């Protein structure tokens, strides 16, 4: 097998030869070299004098009352400094979401009266070494009174189900209804109604670096410094200030190298708060590096939903209306700060790229005795794409249409853009049919179909599965604070500073976890400002240096921070031109600024270096034109013009199925995507590859499996399988670039690869096994699930 990548079109900006631009080039990431040498510093690599290590006592029960906690034996162990319990210092984790009907569950940093899932933190130990802290955990005696457990969301809705929060009277965290108006009528007009129950399971992003935090409270200075493996340092700072009731301007949060995030690190869980409380109480640095087992028990569970969907269609395949009832299993609650957003996004994004005018949904978010539901690369959208794309194939088969045919029939045409979905999401730009057709072309789809027929005669099974989606990326403040009810901004920031030597530093409110931000934003700034790429340094992840920002989530970094970089660059450029014009005795409009040099358009001999302008602005400010302030230092904020940008792609999975065992072999995987203008094709495709692996893992390997007592059976990597190099298919990625309406034309792409994957693979398996009448409805696609579908020959 070989790995290929089709070439990608490099955008040409008006009037500029493409080769002079940095945007569009595959520049190698700058941060790589230290990482390659093992010199990149991650949170657990930091050691401070006098530092203590935290470890947690966690509930072995899924639901129980805490009768008694006795830490005396633990406190006697040499090296143990303190054992914190909920009675001493439990803090409620705040919520930033306010929607009518959204309940506020008890969410304490340490459980006080009651535990509601296995792994919930009950006490926090601080000791002189990690091993001693772990020894002490075993010595803390906790007496529990077990309570009845409910692990299944549909069972949790039954009248006699155990209640997680007694005062609620039921287990419903949130409910939402949407009616677009014409749905009932459309169902009456349908030639065919197709109804299914589709199930998506619980899995987790599992970055290889688990959660990590080092809190250092300085009693003398009364300051708190926190190093955290986080995707949103500023949000974490505000959160800590609120939860601990401590002045925010005395907190500094630093995200050093972060070993992968994928959503989970844009959440704050219970344990992290106790690490800070321990440091503040003891006046010493306290470090916690989560074990994999703890991570599996507590962090990043998402996607567990049941859908009861009805589709109204015409004989020609036209989709008239969709009705969906969604039961989303949130475990004990949502996490800070996304709460019930993942399931809301599932419901919102279900229509995908289709001309669907009538859409009703009922969303029920239910609590169960499992770990809280947190953000996970794809964020609700993979479930939507799974449901919709399965339905497309199921309908196509009923109507004896090809899977590509029914999609092309229903896709929004380019002439209908911009398009507004029934719930009011505006699709800005895109050409869905073009991307689908291009997928068919690059994959030699029709040849693959012939190959399939040939193999079938030999008794071999080859399956082709298409799936598509529209991803709402970079939501703006209007959408976040309006329909989503969220106290979150959709903007980002960039502070640009030039020094007398003519070098530029950008401080970003954004924070990365391996997306090459230091490189791609330098590419953007270099083009927008006119300064050489090598002279632009990009820094992130320190709240004391960078302006406020919201972090890397919703595939938003390039769109929002990219825009902020362009805006800051333009502002700085204007000032530079003003100064240069004065120095050159020219009008600013008559000047060119590129390659760190400002030149007269009329007379190339009249030129000044950016370095000299910067030096004038700072050290020789007496030479500044009148009324111009000294310094080259400014901050810009950028909020995308569209309510959301819309990336999309078509995926094609090619699989072989061993009908005797149910084993599925991923042979080849094609992706054509449109993420708007691509800054760095190499790193962009890297994002797509990685997201695809998440999608494949979720579709086929990864499952957080709870037994009836609420015990997590896949609580280490021994039982929770991440895909390895040996199971990844050959991947072909191709892109088209339809610029979005934002500054820079970016759309964002970090999550897309993970969105339609389960749908594409399930469709491929169904397709390959069509002779058996197989219909895959539940995830994950385990060998046994496929085998039993074949042997029972459903339908």
């Amino acid at each position, binding site marked *: 097998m070989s790995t290929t990548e089709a070439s990608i079109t490099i955008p040409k900006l008006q009037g500029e030869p493409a080769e002079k631009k940095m945007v569009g080039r595959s520049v190698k990431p700058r941060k790589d070299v230290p990482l390659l040498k093992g010199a990149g510093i991650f949170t657990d690599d930091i050691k401070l004098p006098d530092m203590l290590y935290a470890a947690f006592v966690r509930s072995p029960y899924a639901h129980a009352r805490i009768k008694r906690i006795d830490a005396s034996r633990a406190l006697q162990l040499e090296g143990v400094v303190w054992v914190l319990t909920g009675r001493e210092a439990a803090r409620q984790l705040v919520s930033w979401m306010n929607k009518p009907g959204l309940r506020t569950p008890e969410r304490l940093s340490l459980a006080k009266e009651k535990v509601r899932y296995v792994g919930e933190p009950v006490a926090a130990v601080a000791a002189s070494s990690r091993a001693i802290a772990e020894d002490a955990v075993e010595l803390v005696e906790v007496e529990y009174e077990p309570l009845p457990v409910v692990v299944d969301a549909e069972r949790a809705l039954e009248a006699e189900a155990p209640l997680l929060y007694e005062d609620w009277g039921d287990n419903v965290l949130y409910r939402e209804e949407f009616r677009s108006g014409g749905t009932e009528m459309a169902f009456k007009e349908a030639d065919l109604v197709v109804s299914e129950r589709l199930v998506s399971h619980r899995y987790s992003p599992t970055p290889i670096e688990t959660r990590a935090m080092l809190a250092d409270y300085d009693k003398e200075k009364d300051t708190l410094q926190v190093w955290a493996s986080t995707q949103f340092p500023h949000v974490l700072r505000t959160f800590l200030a609120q939860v601990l009731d401590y002045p925010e301007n005395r907190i500094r949060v630093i995200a050093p190298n972060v070993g992968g995030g994928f959503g989970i690190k844009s959440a704050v869980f219970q344990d992290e708060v106790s690490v800070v409380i321990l440091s503040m109480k003891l006046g010493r640095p306290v470090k916690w590096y989560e074990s994999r087992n703890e991570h599996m028990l507590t962090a990043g569970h998402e996607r567990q939903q049941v859908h009861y969907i009805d589709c109204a269609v015409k004989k020609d395949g036209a989709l008239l209306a969709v009705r969906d009832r969604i039961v989303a299993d949130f475990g004990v609650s949502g996490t800070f700060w996304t709460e019930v957003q993942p399931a809301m996004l599932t419901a919102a994004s279900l229509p995908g790229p289709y001309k669907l005018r009538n859409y009703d949904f009922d969303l029920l978010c239910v609590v169960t005795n499992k770990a809280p539901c947190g953000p996970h690369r794809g964020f609700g959208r993979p479930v939507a794409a799974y449901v919709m794309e399965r339905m497309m194939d199921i309908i196509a088969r009923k109507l004896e249409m090809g899977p590509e045919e029914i999609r092309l029939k229903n896709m929004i045409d380019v002439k209908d853009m911009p398009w507004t979905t029934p719930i009011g999401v505006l699709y800005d730009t895109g050409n869905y049919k073009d991307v689908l057709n291009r997928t068919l072309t690059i994959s030699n789809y029709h040849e693959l179909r012939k190959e399939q027929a040939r193999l079938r005669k030999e008794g071999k099974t080859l399956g082709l599965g298409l799936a598509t989606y529209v991803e709402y990326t970079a939501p703006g403040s209007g959408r976040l604070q309006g329909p989503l009810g969220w106290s979150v901004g959709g903007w980002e920031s960039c502070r640009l500073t030039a020094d007398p030597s003519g070098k530029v530093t950008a401080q970003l409110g954004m924070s990365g976890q391996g997306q090459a931000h230091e490189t791609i934003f330098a590419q953007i700034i270099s083009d927008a400002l006119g300064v050489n790429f090598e002279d632009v340094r990009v820094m992130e992840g320190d709240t004391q240096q960078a302006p406020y920002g919201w972090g890397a989530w919703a595939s938003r970094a390039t769109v929002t921070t990219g825009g902020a970089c362009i805006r800051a660059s333009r502002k700085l450029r204007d000032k530079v031109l003003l100064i240069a014009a004065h120095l050159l005795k020219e009008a600013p409009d008559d000047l060119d600024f590129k390659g760190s040099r400002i030149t007269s358009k009329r007379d190339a001999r009249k030129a000044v270096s950016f370095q000299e302008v910067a030096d004038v602005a700072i050290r020789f400010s007496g030479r500044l034109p009148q009324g111009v302030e000294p310094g080259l230092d400014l901050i810009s904020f950028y909020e995308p013009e569209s309510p959301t940008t819309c990336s999309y792609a078509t995926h094609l999975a090619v699989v072989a199925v061993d009908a005797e*065992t149910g084993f599925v072999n991923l042979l080849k995987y094609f992706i054509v995507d449109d993420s708007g203008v691509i800054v760095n094709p190499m790193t962009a495709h890297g994002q797509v590859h990685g997201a695809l692996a998440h999608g494949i893992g979720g579709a086929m390997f990864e499952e957080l*499996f709870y037994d009836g007592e609420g015990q997590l059976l896949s609580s280490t990597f*021994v039982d929770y*399988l991440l895909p*390895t190099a040996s199971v990844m298919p050959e991947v072909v990625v191709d892109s088209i670039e339809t610029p979005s309406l934002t500054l820079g034309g970016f759309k964002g792409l970090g999550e897309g690869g993970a969105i339609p994957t389960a749908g594409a693979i399930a469709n491929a398996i169904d397709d390959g096994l069509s002779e058996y009448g197989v219909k895959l409805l539940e995830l994950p696609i*385990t060998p046994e699930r496929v085998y039993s579908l074949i042997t029972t020959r459903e339908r």
Partner: protein
Amino acid sequence: MNPKSFEYHAPKSVAEASSLAEEYGMDAKFLAGGQSLIPLMKLRLLSPSHLIDLGRIPGLSYIRDEGNHLAIGAMERIAEIARSDLVRKQCPILSQCAHQIADPLVRNMGTIGGNLSHADPTNDMPAVMVAAGASIVAASGQGSRVIPAGDFFVDTFTTALKGTEILVEVKMPIGPTRRGAYLKLERQAGDFGIVGVAAVLEMSSDGRCVAAGIALTGVGPTVVKATRAGEILKGVELDKNTIDRASRAAAEEAQPSGDLRGSAEYKRAMVEVMTSRTIQAAARRQAER
């Protein structure tokens, strides 16, 4: 995650290791490569007070051709077995099995002795040993004895070794008429298998099967010897019907229980499929030397 504290012993001879085991009894565990033991200790599912490291006893890592068998030292790394030309030529089933154990890095630490004495029903080596009728040499301060592989695996994590005995050598029968294969159904490299099947056939010159050993991984409290399946193959030509009957018999002999990797029914069905494939793979092999 760290193990609980323990006292560490690094004996220089088998006799010394054995006497340490006698002294500390149930509080002690032998450490070979540690690839199963150390994770269990880190998860604190096992917390021995004394760890007796066999890694510094000289002369326990070797692969020797002894004519009618390969003698393999207990501390021989799985990776060395996997990359040994001698093993590949003389005993392909063993090579094939070694390649399927865990992943390349774990194989670099893991030992054949550890794999066998851990007696995890999902470990792969036991089935190969039982199918091949291998012998296991156990030694203590008082001398040594040979235990047939068929008698070695008693129950989950339990072998016929006495507390003071150490597995020191494996004797793997070889010969020009023996053909063996080990196939495993696993979701990906490094995962525990769903089922594994070892088949060793003794073939006559006219292409009949003179004797057959079939053993199963992952479908019982310990390795399962599919005796009836072996008997069905004995003395007959390996046609489809015979292989089908033997495979069905193996499935009946399996004692699977359900877990995350599959239900008991699925595993039983997979024993049938994999037994058939393994017998055919073994039969296809050229004579082993």
